[in-house]
């Protein structure tokens, strides 16, 4: 599967998330407190809400609509009403750019 150039690494603050749309789909790109980068589906698995509008706390993302929580490193749902895991995607950094394998 191709590696897609999503954004500059500096576009994402530490312990934060941004939205990345590609090919008609929406993804969420995260920068963790230990400066690692991660990517999940961009829309909550519970109901339609963009996770990039939510709050990153440590290694978790909280959905802005109903406060469902996911571990963005694994996609695991951690708190109701989120019950279904998010899909995750491999991420690498090259020359200061964030690349996602989609």
């Amino acid at each position, binding site marked *: 599967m191709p590696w897609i150039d999503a954004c500059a690494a500096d576009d994402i603050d530490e312990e*934060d998330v941004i939205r990345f749309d590609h090919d008609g789909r929406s993804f969420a790109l995260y920068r963790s407190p230990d400066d690692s980068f991660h990517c999940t589906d961009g829309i909550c698995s*519970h*109901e*339609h809400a963009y996770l990039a*509008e*939510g*709050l990153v*706390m440590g290694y978790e993302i*909280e959905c*802005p*609509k*109903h*406060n469902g*929580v996911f571990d963005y490193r694994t996609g695991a749902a951690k*708190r*109701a*009403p989120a*019950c279904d895991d998010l899909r995750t995607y491999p991420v690498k950094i090259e020359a200061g750019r964030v690349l996602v394998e989609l």
Partner: protein
Amino acid sequence: MGKRDYSMHGTDAARAVEAGLAAAEWYHTDVPRKEMKALMTRADQPALRDTALLFAAMIGFAAAGIALWPSWASAPFWLAYGVLYGSAMDSRWHECGHGTAFKTRWMNDALYQVASFCMMRNPTTWRWSHARHHTDTIIVGRDPEIAIMRPPEVLKLALAFIGLRDVAQAIPRMLLNASGRLHPDEATWIPEQEQPKAIRAARVWVRIYAATIALALWTGSFLPLMLVGLPRIYGAWHHVLTGFLQHGGLADNVIDHRLNSRTVYMNPVSRFIYWNMNYHVEHHMFPMVPYHALPALHEKIKHDLPAPNRSMPDAWREMWPALRRQMQNEEYFLERALPPTAKPYRLALHGAPVPAE
């Protein structure tokens, strides 16, 4: 629109889905990401302080009530205890259900369980019904938490102040759940994997109430029931007084919280009991902002919202005549004026023609 059908399986439920009102994209005031992130930041300290104060006050009032029991001199202490049990716990249930009261998750969960018990709201069922309330706020047939249905009925509204309607529904529902079954409406919003939790909680509660009743019978005194259970009735009035103002008299079947929710400035005691939910437009627009940050959020976005009511009496003076009119004509609602600095209501989404650009 004819007579509204508020059931989750009725004609209005189907109509809301057809009209695109279910799980729709709602209006949000623009707030820069960095500012919103700061507002959403969690903390333990404000809720630890408020929770310590709440439980200390409850213990103090209950102790005074017990000491003076059965004299009428105990009544003021029971009234104060009752408001904290039957009204302050409503806002604690609400805030902890959102997971925003504390930064530490187990603290949220612990207070959520206690508050759910006090309010006789099954912690699983109501977590899901409240999620639906936020997805489909005041959408008829979709929102299971519409407090004032149209046309309003005076007797029902009056009974709410003494918690009788809620308790009359909660006890049979608790017994139904404890028997291992869910109401068909509950099954529409609780995912299957979560349903056993609702049944487990109901079974624990039945044991607690059975023990309380047994203690009352054994001692030949109402006192155990004054502490557990009855405060949900005699202390409910404050959460109804404030809660009716959240959406009462305003529009339904719209997808802009400025049209269906009300922000009201309140006195500090009511704000403590209500945990700042008087900033209700702000809460619905941004449910991730903790209660203690709502005043700051209000300052940031009030240019885009209808002017808040100046006090509880002011808000009731606005709402009550609207409810009276809805008793005659259920189509009536208050459309609150926006300030010139606000973005206009999105008429295209509310059944009116799109104005020319």
